[in-house]
C-alpha cells in the first residue's frame, strides 16, 4: 500500500489529468492516482512521463532499454516489470533485455556501438554525474545527434527521479499500459 492516499475518483482539478493519462496509457496508472493528492505535481509529472513514453527523436523501443538500465544502475525498481514488457512489445528480444544486466552490454553482439555508448552514460550518471568525460561523450556524439542526446539524457535522469520517487512512496504499476503500444 502506498505511503500516501491513492485517489481513485479525481477531484475537479485533476479530472483532465486522469483523462489524458487514460488516453495515453489505456487506463489511469497507479502513479497518477498517488500523485492525485497534489494536483500541481499530478499534472506536471504525468505530462513529462507521457512525453517520454512514446516515439521521440530516439525510438521508444530503445528508450525502454535505457529506462531498464537506469533502474538497474540506480538500484530502484518502480515499474521494472512494466518496462520489461513494453521493451518486448516494442520489438526488443529477450537477449537485448538480458544483456542489460551488470556489464554484459559491453561485449554484447545485440547492441550497436551507439547503443553501448548510451549504457556507458547511464552507468556513469548513476555513479557520479560530475565525471562524464570525453571517453563517454565522444562515442555518444559519433552515434547520435544533439536533439537525441538531449532526449536520452532527459530519459535517464527522469527515470532516476521517477524510480526513486515512486519506490519511496511504495507505488506499484505492474502494467503501465492497458492498451497495445504497437
Amino acid at each position, binding site marked *: 500500500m502506498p505511503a500516501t492516499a491513492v485517489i481513485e475518483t479525481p477531484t475537479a482539478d485533476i479530472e483532465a489529468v486522469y483523462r489524458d493519462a487514460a488516453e495515453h496509457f489505456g487506463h489511469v496508472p497507479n502513479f497518477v492516482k498517488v500523485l492525485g493528492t497534489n494536483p500541481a505535481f499530478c499534472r506536471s509529472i504525468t505530462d513529462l512521463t507521457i512525453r517520454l513514453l512514446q516515439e521521440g527523436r530516439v525510438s521508444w523501443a530503445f528508450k525502454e532499454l535505457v529506462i531498464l538500465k537506469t533502474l538497474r544502475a540506480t538500484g530502484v525498481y518502480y515499474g521494472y516489470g512494466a518496462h520489461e514488457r513494453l521493451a518486448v512489445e516494442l520489438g526488443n528480444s529477450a537477449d537485448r533485455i538480458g544483456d542489460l544486466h551488470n556489464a554484459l552490454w559491453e561485449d554484447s553482439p545485440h547492441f550497436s556501438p551507439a547503443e553501448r555508448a548510451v549504457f556507458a552514460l547511464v552507468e556513469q550518471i548513476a555513479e557520479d554525474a560530475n565525471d*562524464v568525460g570525453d571517453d563517454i561523450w565522444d562515442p555518444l556524439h559519433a552515434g547520435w545527434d544533439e536533439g537525441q542526446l538531449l532526449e536520452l539524457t532527459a530519459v535517464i*535522469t527522469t527515470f532516476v527521479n521517477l524510480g526513486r520517487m515512486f519506490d519511496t512512496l511504495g507505488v506499484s504499476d505492474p502494467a503501465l499500459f492497458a492498451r497495445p503500444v504497437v
Partner: protein
Amino acid sequence: MPRLPYIEPDEADPVTKQVYDDAEARFEMVLNIFKITGNAPEIAQPMWQVYFDILQDGQIPWVDKELLILKSTKMGDCLYCVTQHEVVAGRLGVSPEKQADIVGVEYRASSHYTPAEVAILDLCGHVVVDPESVPAEVWRRVREHYDDGQIVEVVATIGAYLQVSKFGDALGVQLEEVWHGHEPVLFAAEPPTSSASRQHFEHFLAQSPSA
C-alpha cells in the same frame, strides 16, 4: 565545456522561447541549464514545468523545498545547483548558519531546525541513498507534520532535484558568470566527496573575484 550547444533566446523556436520567457520572468535570467534543453523543445516544456511547480509556494512553503533542494543536491555534489540555491534560500530567509548545518546530519542537533524540518531532511537522506532504507520511524515523524499532498510534494522535490543535478552535471552545464564571487556555504562546511566535483569546485573558486 557544455556537451551540447546552448540554444540562445534569439535562436530558439517558439515553444522554447516561451519556456525561456517563463524562466526569465521567474528567475530574472535564462540560465544555461534552460538553454541546453533548447536542443529538444518538446522535452523542455514538460520538464521545466515540474521545476516551475517546485520553485514557488505550494502545499508546502517554497522555503521548505529549498532545504530539500540544498540537501539532495549537496549529497550529489552538484556545484551548479548548490551554488544557485544557496542564494535562493538566502533570499527566502535561510541564514548561512542554517544552510551550513544541512550537511551530514548536523541539522538534527541544530537549533536552526524544527522537528518537522528534521523529519523531511532525514527522509531526503534516505531517498537519495536508497529508498528501500526509509525506516518506519522516519515515516512516522514525517506524517506527524505533513499530510499526504505535502508528502507527495516533499518526495517530488527531492526526486526532481536528483534528476536536474545529474542532468546538468552530465551535460557539463556551466555556472553563469553572475554566480562567480558567491561565497560557498555548504561546500565550505563539507568539501565535495567526488574527485570530479572537487575539481569543479576548485575551478569555480579560482574564477571568483574574491579568490
